[in-house]
């Protein structure tokens, strides 16, 4: 803290909690090895970002021209990797064959059709 100086034991506990422990940093910024990343290592947010694959959402220049994974793969990863089934048809009960015509997402994604209840 810059403007407040903790004095008693309670104040020390509060200021320790109030300090931002670590900022959100990119995966390639390793902790402790210099650079902007804090000594404790990068902060991993919970959720989809745990299965974030480098070169998927953005390429090395920040654009999408040089992705090493096709963006179309997102369609599967949201419900397979992140377990977010609400976005896709229920493939256990109502639409078991929803992706049967889509063997390779980047090539066949157009074969995935709408499902009507």
């Amino acid at each position, binding site marked *: 803290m810059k*403007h*407040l100086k903790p*004095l*008693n*034991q309670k*104040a020390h506990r*509060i200021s320790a909690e109030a300090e931002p422990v670590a900022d959100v940093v990119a995966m390639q910024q390793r902790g402790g090895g210099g650079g902007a990343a804090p000594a404790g290592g990068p902060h991993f947010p919970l959720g989809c970002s745990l299965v974030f694959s480098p070169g998927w959402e953005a390429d090395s220049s920040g654009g999408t021209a040089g992705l090493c994974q096709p963006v179309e793969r997102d369609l599967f990863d949201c419900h397979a990797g992140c377990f977010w089934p609400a976005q896709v048809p229920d493939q256990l009960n109502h639409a078991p064959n929803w992706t049967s015509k889509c063997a390779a997402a980047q090539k066949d994604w157009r074969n995935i059709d709408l499902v009507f209840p």
Partner: protein
Amino acid sequence: MHRFQAAGKTFVYTSNAAVFEIDETAEAALDGHCDDATALREIEAIEPLGPTARQMPPAEFPLTTMVLNVTNQCNLSCTYCYEYGEDKIVETENGDQPKFMNEQTARESVEFLLNESRTNKLIHLTFFGGETLLNFPVLKSTIAYARRRAAEVGKQIDFSLTTNATLLRPEIVEWLIDNNVGVTISMDGPKELQDQFRVFKNGMGSYDIIAPKVKDLLRRHTRRPIGARVTLTSQTLDVKKIFHHLTEDIGFAEVGFAPVTTANNRLYAIGGNGFDTMLAQFQSLAWEFCEAAIAGRHHGFSNVKDTLEEIHKGVSKAYPCGAGLGLMGVSTGGDVALCHRFAGSGDHKLGSVTEGIDRLVQIQFLELHHIDSKTDCKQCWASPLCSGGCYHEAHVRYGDTSRANLHYCEWIRGWTDTCLQIYGELSVRRPEFLNRSVPDAEPLQLEAVR
């Protein structure tokens, strides 16, 4: 958030009992004269916004201290006494409770303490009365028994008692030393003040009897600091004179003061300007303490020491004291009550040493007396330390233990502010005092039983 100044600096005491020193930017931000983003964010971080959820203590809270009323009889007739005077709540002459605790009840009480202290390794057994030493035989056998039983179950037990000192004899002093018993002496100061209220049944003052006995005790019992506990009344309100007499002329290491607990209309009750007078005297003595602390000298004004300790830890109380939680009182007949002041009162019974604690009664008590139930205290910055004040005081004043003690709010705020200033002063001028006198890991020292 309460703001205060000390040693030329500005400090805040937050609603959750944290103390921060603040710089000029933060102070301006607090006043709304500055929109420095960092300062505003920091201030926001230390003061919780809006109400927080009520936190109840864990069920079956372990006992730390048990106060055993070994007798409800006394050889003095102090006019203001809450146990025998006009405001008494237990019938001690013709009531249900025996006049003396017998050995069996005392042993059952020890078993109750060992059992109810659960995982606590260090427990305190305190003896109280009436006049405690009137039941010396039971006192003696109980300490021997408790020491043996505590060792058997692997606990450390600590003993203390409160006495009016009239019955101290060389062999009792010897026994107190041998058993390392902590002693608190009820004494009101020099002769003219002591003899005003602390009298024998025939009206004779007790000063001349006790002064030599107390001096003898203090000279020989040096293993533990022996404290004097002073009751202040409207007619004996001279804090500095009492303090200096008891420390310098008599030789006490510590002196603690408390205003008499009484209904409002008694002659000796402190009311109106009395609290202001008392506050001014407390303040003056507290600054004397501060200067001594800075100079590295001991000063035995225990009220300020106790409050500083609570401030340093950042205590934020849901209850004014441990009564009914970690502390309980046992009556001469073995009834368990909130504390020693309620021991023997049917209305404030929590169980008995043989049948255990009535958990339903205890939970109802804790729900009703939680600080969140005291709407009067909601806006008060001193509530983390006061939490509404003594249940017994509230019972005597208002006939209701759950009432906040509104008659002394101004005094509490004035006194807390003084102690905060001293805390701030010490943090600037002698920071090592605060860290040295209050080790981190040590649990809060229990206040002397009064």
